[in-house]
């Protein structure tokens, strides 16, 4: 069940089939629902996300079924399928296909086709079938037996009509109109006329944002790298101009090269920040020209800003003495496009005493936190990817080894600092409940320094295996 706020009360926004069977209705206070159904799982309703998901669904239907798709409230979609159904095997097949595909995506849906929007709406809200086709001209007959609530009327009007004994659409259709309008307003006749198709009901179809794109056809296929570079140079400025018109900057660019053998080569450029600087984009695209295989020639080039975001204006320098921070986003783009995502990173501190957990990688343009590692404890310059076991001889419980063998070389310990005890993080798992490591910084006779540790505290078996490991190299 989903709960949300209506004014000051927490009410039921939506309930699943089992809950509805137990008597829950939308609009009921949450406390009452919980009394009715002990053990009810209550989750917060997120209308914004619901709406966004509905819009995504609408876009999908727009590509799949018909170009005219509109949102209907929070839980419905309107499709104008005139002229589209025969392409999909007729109305019944089309409806079944839509419902089946939605079911596959975990959405239970009911669909109906009728002459008017109002009739289709009424059918989906009142009948139990999932894909119903009301044949042309028969919507009046279908509507007649339906409850008044299916007419998209306000709840008070429906209750008022029920008080008068008017529960079916047929009742109000045959009743004299003037008294009804006088009592309930013009809404009732408008909805009635819309359902019967006596007045037009315009819908507001959604429109996907057009991607910013430019393209160019070539009379003669091109293949040479210089020619490709020249035409990229001609495509980028108009793209940047149209980005500027919309106040956007590109985050991702796709350059599609249609070859004469109808294969498509793609070059993708990702950007750390929205950019519409032609020079910068041109440079990033030109970097990748060598990856293009022109084959027998390229006859068409499309440059699309697949992902565009609004450019934010920032104040450059806030005071006269302050030096402007160098903008690294250009460099970051260059390197990231060359090496791939994830090759560029900053390192941020994590509050953990376990050395390998005390660092985390963050994206290069992540905001800087003021967290820092503790200063007092010396840390090695190189930390081995995984600690390497060493053979040692050491006195228990808290003495460093007298010598140790690492990678086949025996080293005598001249002096040592420690132990620095690091306890396991018990909240991570049961195995770390009692675990401990004793770290020592040791220097051998040649002056090389190592960071070694013993798994365990040297006294209690449950704290670790008591074996020694080399974890890092000091300078």
């Amino acid at each position, binding site marked *: 069940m989903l709960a949300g706020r209506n004014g000051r009360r927490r009410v039921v926004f939506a309930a699943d089939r089992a809950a509805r069977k137990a008597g829950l209705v939308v609009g009921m206070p949450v406390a009452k629902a919980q009394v009715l159904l002990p053990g009810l799982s209550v989750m917060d309703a997120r209308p914004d996300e619901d709406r966004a998901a509905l819009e995504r669904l609408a876009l999908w239907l727009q590509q799949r079924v018909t170009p005219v798709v509109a949102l209907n409230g929070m839980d419905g979609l309107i499709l104008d399928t005139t002229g589209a159904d025969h392409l999909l095997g007729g109305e019944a097949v089309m409806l079944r296909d839509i419902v089946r595909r939605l079911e596959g995506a975990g959405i239970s849906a009911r669909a109906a086709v009728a002459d008017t929007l109002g009739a289709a709406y009424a059918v989906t809200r009142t009948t139990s079938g999932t894909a119903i086709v009301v044949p042309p001209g028969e919507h009046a007959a279908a509507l007649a037996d339906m409850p008044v609530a299916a007419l998209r009327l306000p709840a008070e009007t429906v209750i008022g009509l029920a008080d008068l004994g008017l529960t079916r659409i047929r009742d109000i259709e045959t009743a004299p109109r003037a008294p009804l309008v006088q009592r309930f307003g013009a809404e009732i006749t408008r909805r009635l006329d819309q359902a019967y198709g006596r007045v037009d009901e315009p819908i507001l179809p959604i429109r996907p944002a057009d991607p910013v794109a430019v393209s160019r056809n070539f009379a003669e296929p091109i293949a040479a790298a210089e020619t490709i570079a020249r035409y990229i140079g001609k495509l980028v400025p108009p793209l940047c101009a149209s980005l500027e018109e919309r106040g956007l900057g590109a985050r991702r660019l796709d350059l599609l090269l249609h070859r004469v053998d109808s294969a498509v080569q793609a070059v993708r450029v990702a950007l750390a920040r929205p950019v519409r600087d032609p020079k910068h984009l041109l440079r990033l695209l030109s970097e990748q020209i060598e990856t293009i295989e022109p084959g027998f020639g390229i006859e068409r080039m499309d440059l699309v800003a697949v992902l565009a975001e609004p450019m934010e204006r920032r104040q450059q320098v806030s005071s006269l003495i302050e030096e402007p921070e*160098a903008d*690294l986003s*250009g*460099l970051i783009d*260059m*390197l990231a496009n*060359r*090496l791939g995502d994830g*090759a*560029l*990173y*900053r*390192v*941020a*501190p994590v509050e953990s005493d376990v*050395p390998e957990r005390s*660092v985390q*990688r963050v994206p*290069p343009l992540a905001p*800087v936190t003021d967290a*820092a*590692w*503790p*200063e*007092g*404890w*010396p*840390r*090695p*310059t*190189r*930390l*081995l*990817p995984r600690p390497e076991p060493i053979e040692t001889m050491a006195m228990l419980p*808290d*003495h*460093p*080894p*007298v010598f140790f063998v690492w990678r086949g070389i025996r080293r005598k*310990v*001249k*002096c*040592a*600092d*420690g*132990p*620095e005890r690091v306890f396991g993080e018990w909240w991570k798992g049961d195995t770390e409940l009692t675990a401990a490591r004793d770290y*020592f*910084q*040791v*220097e051998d*006779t*040649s*002056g*090389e*320094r190592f960071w070694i540790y013993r798994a365990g505290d040297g006294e209690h078996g449950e704290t670790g295996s008591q074996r020694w490991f080399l974890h*890092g*190299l*000091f*300078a």
Partner: protein
Amino acid sequence: MTAEPHKKPGLETLRAAISRLEGHTSRKRATLPFGVRDIDRKLPGGGLTLGTLHEVAGGGNDALNAAAAARFAAGIAARTKGQVLWIVTVADLFAPALQQAGLAASRVLFVEAGTDRDVLACFEEGLRHPGLGAVVAEVGRLTMTASRRLQLAAESGGGIGLALRRWRRQTDAADFGQPTASTTRWRVSLLPSAPLPVAGVGDSRWLLELIRTRSGESADFEVEARHGQSKLRLAGASDRPATDTADHVDLAASMGDRPTSPRAGRRRASA
């Protein structure tokens, strides 16, 4: 020791002529001093020139790990202004240690490049960017051509380029003898630290060899890197003349001066 070369007017004009022939810009490059007079005196211009390429390698066993060389490079990068690009092939650099060398994590942008070719390409790209204070790259093989490209890129960018030489095999380390276009070439080897009057490990001590410097002489220094500082100091400061105290040469060096407060309550042991 010879007199300081740049005092001689004849040499100065000759050097200017050579620099013109080499196609350098006429303006004098800024330098980044070490803050240690003995080292700075050996370097033309009194420090590492900005906008040029410098090479650092580890000596002995450290040639493969380049731990001391990385710490040395971090110290130099920490003293520059602005962001630092650090290009690695193996991600085993431990950022808390960079912070302890004076280079805050928020200043470093790491790049993990798989191959030497990518490293050099990123290195060049970074050096060409005017907004970076220093670019450090862990490079194995560095040819004359590649280093010349890097040097030209550094000249156009203005940041300091530090090629941290790191090889995969000990035998490859002989590559360090090959000529490159770098302005200075350093080798950092670990030395046993000065014994402390109490049990424990003293400050790290390095043999810092200036193997090559353009228009200067090579030299050796024995330095100590102090915990939490980017500046080095000469080791065994007590046998230097007292006038050197202004140059961060700490007379207490041989006495085992160490920060004590954060280590209070810490157990120590020695072998």
